[in-house]
């Protein structure tokens, strides 16, 4: 007998999670929303440049099909095409909805939505709110959820961390186990279906553009419970980030969308201040190599170009791994549209980018891979759905800028109603649905961790993990390096067994929570590294100099990792290419 009113748990309160919550509440379901941080502080807040949708308000003849084609081509044909097509078709309605929710999108003089250009397309397709679009979108959805919360339709569990799914004797999901990060209380919560919207996994790379909570821990826990993790090896390195001590701060693609240019001095020994180097002495390498798209080539292409200029040509500024991203020539009204990101640069670096070119370098930014889902956003574990960056659909081998916000909302809008439908036809669980057993498993794990008499500091292990992942599994990949990284992760897993928490208290113990995440990061790191090792080709963000070409015959396949005998086991699945035939991806072509 199905419950009269389905109870759905949504894990993660970023754009995808909030979108799912809104759909469920609107359809009359009960939602429990779990988030490590107050949902208004979720990582979606960091998205800057905008959200894509083929509204075609600039008289360019843009269309959902053109958006679809750009996305598939930009993703190097690895994405299943059906959901991507649906997302692009729903784009305009999603923008209209956000507009109705009060998102302060930039406007044209006539009062219509304004659109800017972004990477990997020749159309003005990106709606934006200054350069803090993710923040504005997240807030709009947060406000709608707060409205439902005040009406009693949503219950928030902020400051709770998801630990695992509760699975019944048949392997179907019956809830979650979670930990209160303040009282450290362990509990299981019942649900008819759960939706995992826990975002990216940048922390596996140590420093990235991601927020602190983006550890991939929830995805990894589910993978260890039997969920497939797909295309893990596809990691986007954003071409323009500000290198920093604690993180790499994103410098949005919108800087180039508004006319920003990337360059280095033509003479590597040029000692002049950047502003006094005349036009003729600057090398605009992206514009030279990619005349049609110029500075707005897709991210993987721009990132490799910068890497090449710095490491092959030895042309980094002052011999450092940095190039200029220049918006100083832009008119004040253009600079005004970039205010939010220019302020970030000014605050963290100290120079005014309105006057001086910014110094940037690529940084780990996004995972295209994630939990495997079907076209209804359901994983292979019945009752476990996923949406947003946490799932693998939509972006293939490389995500186009300003498609992530759209994919989050689209994914949440599909997952919410699908989870409701699943829950309505769910039969009652046998016994307690596995709650007591899962509770026991988590308790034991916590006891072991808290009482472990070892000597290893978890933050030290994390730092070493980040260093090896950044070195071997980002822009350029060699099989020897990937093998080295996998061996290193195994070593770190061994050392993890010898972990010692300097804080054993049971109140707001952040290092305890972190140690749990770290365990999951290590397991997921192996999926990334081994997936990359197996894929002997170059496609989108995955680039192996020893295999520089795309190999459709062997690798036009989704990588699926499952957790077998404490290690990833891989299989490959055909990609849905039912709408567009794969063609060579050449952004350097001029025609």
């Amino acid at each position, binding site marked *: 007998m199905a419950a009269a009113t389905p109870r759905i748990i949504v894990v993660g309160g970023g754009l995808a999670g909030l979108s799912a919550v809104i759909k469920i509440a609107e359809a009359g379901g009960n939602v429990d929303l779990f988030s490590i941080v107050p949902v208004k502080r979720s990582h979606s*807040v960091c998205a800057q440049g905008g959200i894509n949708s083929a509204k075609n308000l600039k008289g360019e003849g843009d269309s959902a099909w053109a958006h679809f084609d750009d996305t598939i081509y930009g993703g190097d044909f690895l994405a299943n095409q059906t959901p991507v097509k649906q997302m692009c078709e729903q784009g305009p309605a999603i923008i209209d909805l956000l507009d109705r929710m009060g998102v302060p999108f930039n406007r044209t003089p006539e009062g219509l939505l304004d659109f800017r250009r972004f990477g990997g397309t020749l159309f003005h397709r990106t709606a934006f709110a200054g350069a803090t679009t993710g923040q504005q979108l997240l807030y709009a959805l947060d406000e709608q959820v707060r409205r439902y919360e005040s009406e009693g339709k949503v219950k928030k569990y902020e400051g709770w961390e998801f630990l695992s799914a509760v699975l019944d004797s048949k392997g179907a999901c019956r809830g979650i186990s979670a930990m209160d990060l303040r009282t450290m209380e362990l509990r299981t919560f019942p649900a008819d279906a759960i939706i995992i919207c826990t975002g990216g996994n940048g922390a596996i790379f140590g420093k990235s553009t991601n927020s602190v909570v983006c550890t991939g821990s929830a995805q990894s826990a589910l993978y260890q419970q039997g969920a497939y993790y797909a295309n893990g090896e596809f990691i986007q390195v954003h071409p323009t980030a500000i290198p920093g001590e604690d993180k790499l701060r994103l410098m949005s693609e919108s800087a180039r969308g508004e006319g920003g240019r990337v360059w280095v001095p033509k003479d590597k020994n040029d000692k002049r201040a950047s502003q006094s180097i005349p036009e003729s002495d600057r090398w605009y390498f992206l514009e030279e190599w990619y005349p049609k798209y110029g500075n707005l080539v897709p991210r993987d292409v721009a990132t490799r170009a910068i890497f090449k200029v710095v490491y092959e040509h030895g042309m980094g500024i002052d011999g450092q791994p940095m190039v200029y991203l220049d918006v100083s020539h832009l008119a004040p009204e253009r600079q005004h549209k970039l205010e*939010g990101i220019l302020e970030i640069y000014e605050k963290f670096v100290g120079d005014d980018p309105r006057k001086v070119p910014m110094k940037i370098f690529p940084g780990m930014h996004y995972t295209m891979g994630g939990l495997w889902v079907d076209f209804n956003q359901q994983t292979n574990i019945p009752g476990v759905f996923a949406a947003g960056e946490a799932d693998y659909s939509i972006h293939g081998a490389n995500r186009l800028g300003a498609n992530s916000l759209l994919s989050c909302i689209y994914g949440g809008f599909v997952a919410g109603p699908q989870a409701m439908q699943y829950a309505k036809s769910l039969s009652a669980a046998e016994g307690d649905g596995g709650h007591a057993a899962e509770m026991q498993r988590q308790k034991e794990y916590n006891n072991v961790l808290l009482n472990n008499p070892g000597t290893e500091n978890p*933050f030290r292990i994390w730092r070493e993990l980040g260093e090896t992942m950044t070195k071997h599994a980002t822009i350029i990949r060699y099989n020897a390096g990937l093998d080295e990284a996998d061996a290193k992760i195994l070593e770190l897993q061994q050392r993890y067994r010898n972990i010692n928490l300097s804080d054993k208290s049971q*109140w707001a113990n952040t290092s305890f929570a972190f140690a749990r995440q770290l365990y999951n990061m290590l397991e997921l790191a192996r999926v990334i590294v081994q997936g990359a090792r197996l894929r002997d080709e170059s496609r989108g963000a995955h680039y192996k100099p020893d295999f520089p070409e795309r190999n459709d015959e062997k690798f036009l396949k989704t990588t699926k990792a499952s957790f077998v005998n404490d290690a990833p086991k891989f299989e490959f699945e055909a990609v849905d290419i039912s709408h567009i035939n794969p063609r060579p991806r050449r952004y350097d072509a001029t025609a």
Partner: protein
Amino acid sequence: MPSTIRVEIKRQASPDTAAVTETFEIPYRPGMNITSLLGEIALNPVDVTGKATTPVTYDSNCLEEICGSCAMLINGKARMACSALVDKLEQPIRLAPLSKFPIVRDLSVDRSVLFENLKKIKAWVPIDGTYDLGAGPRQFPQVQEQRYPLSNCISCCCCMEVCPQFNDVTNFVGAATIAQTKLFNLDPAGAVLAEERLRALSGDGGIQECSFAQNCVMTCPKELPLTEAISDMERDVFVQQVKDFFTR
């Protein structure tokens, strides 16, 4: 610049225990901010006397001053830890939790009062539904230019920390909530709840508690036009009260 940084941190293991100050010496690197400094302590949680201690608990997430998590008192000033650069701070650097919110542990406090206040003023646009109802109303860029800065509020609560009126005696809602009232009242569809919002600001702890100290606008890390919003809403609340007096 010395090769190490001296930091004094006010710590408290739980809401019920007494606060103590611990001092740390951290190896200096150029470009450090307060959050990277706290990360260094986690790597080696030993104080200046060589005593082993615990990593410091604090709230953080984005580390680029947009999520609003890491507000704390740095050398006595309410500000975001991520954008506080060590090179620009006087040493020893003194860190303490915000003082006007319930303490959780160390530098972490409970700021849920702001989210509750946002419920009181109905800080949302009451849309009919999420199905496709076509484009929203047209809006001139001038309106967007007014709304956007208000929408940049990151809920850090620094404006409330520095406000002399934000305390248990007045129950004052604080500048952030008032600015959000203006934001939603400016929205063409959000304005349908304008009167309700103004009434919510006119009761106990309402806008009349503001003493125009202007600390809020000087402290706001996102430079919101807070005093302008307060005076605009003060006017609107007054007009609403007069109207209600004669019609209700």
